[in-house]
């Protein structure tokens, strides 16, 4: 649904507005990335003991957190755009 709304936005010529909204959030996103990495690392390290397992799990957690938070951000942007 989010993807189709994004495509609809691009096709209808409102993409610059959506892009501007995204750019406005860049500092927040940029400074949110280290926090996501930290949370992934701590989650991984508190679930495992072996250094190799911790590294692997940290990547696993980062992908999950990034995916979930990315979807939330996309949903917020699109809702703001529709509003």
């Amino acid at each position: 649904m989010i993807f189709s709304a994004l495509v609809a936005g691009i096709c209808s010529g409102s993409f610059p507005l959506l892009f501007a909204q995204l750019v406005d959030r860049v500092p927040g996103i940029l400074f949110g990335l280290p926090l996501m990495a930290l949370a992934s690392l701590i989650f991984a390290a508190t679930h495992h003991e072996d250094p190799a397992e911790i590294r692997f799990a940290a990547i696993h957690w980062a992908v999950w957190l990034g995916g979930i938070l990315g979807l939330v951000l996309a949903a917020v942007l699109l809702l703001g755009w529709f509003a």
Partner: protein
Amino acid sequence: MAVTPRNIENARPRIVAISPDDGSAIDLKNPALAALLSWCVPGLGQLYQGRTYKGRLFMGAILGTFLAGLWLGGGKVVYASWKPGDTRWAYVCQAGAGLVALPAAVQSMQIHGVAKQPLFCSTFMAPPLTPGQYVSRAYADVLTRSDPEIDGDSFFDKPPLKQFRGEQVSIWQRRLGRWFDIGTLYTMLAGMLNVLVIYDAFAGPLGTPTDEDRKAHKEGKDTKPR
């Protein structure tokens, strides 16, 4: 056999956790002490338990994030305040980072106490002044010298004290903009994630061991404590 501290130590049952990775035993030593140490300095409890990799990792990650947040927020984002209308709930999370956040509590108690000024008149982690708040003359002078937006007119002269006229947190937020929020978020998250680190020191890894790990533990194949 003679009773010696060494014999008592050997007789005491070991508190262990099972590693979810290979089923080996993790000697938690004194879990309560380890948890306390991990609150004081993130990762210190794990270092005490001999889990040096995790100890260093936690220490670097948590303290690094906390200090980065403090720096991003211009040193103003960690303070404690329980005054009605100016309750700093973020400090509840920040306090999770341990001793590094403790000066804020001390400064808050000092400025609201009899002295009416923070420890050594330092602005470090001191709570912002609220409208009508009384402070010592020495602290008013320090603020006048250190903050370009605060001058002699910012205080009413109420001997032997001075009464602040403005609202300092508004000055900070106007000057720092979004960095105030980003710094607050960094320090809060560092404190909250340290709760997981404290739990890890107290009870071992959160990960669930597999059936094979449990079986290996029962068969005594994991006698090598970490």
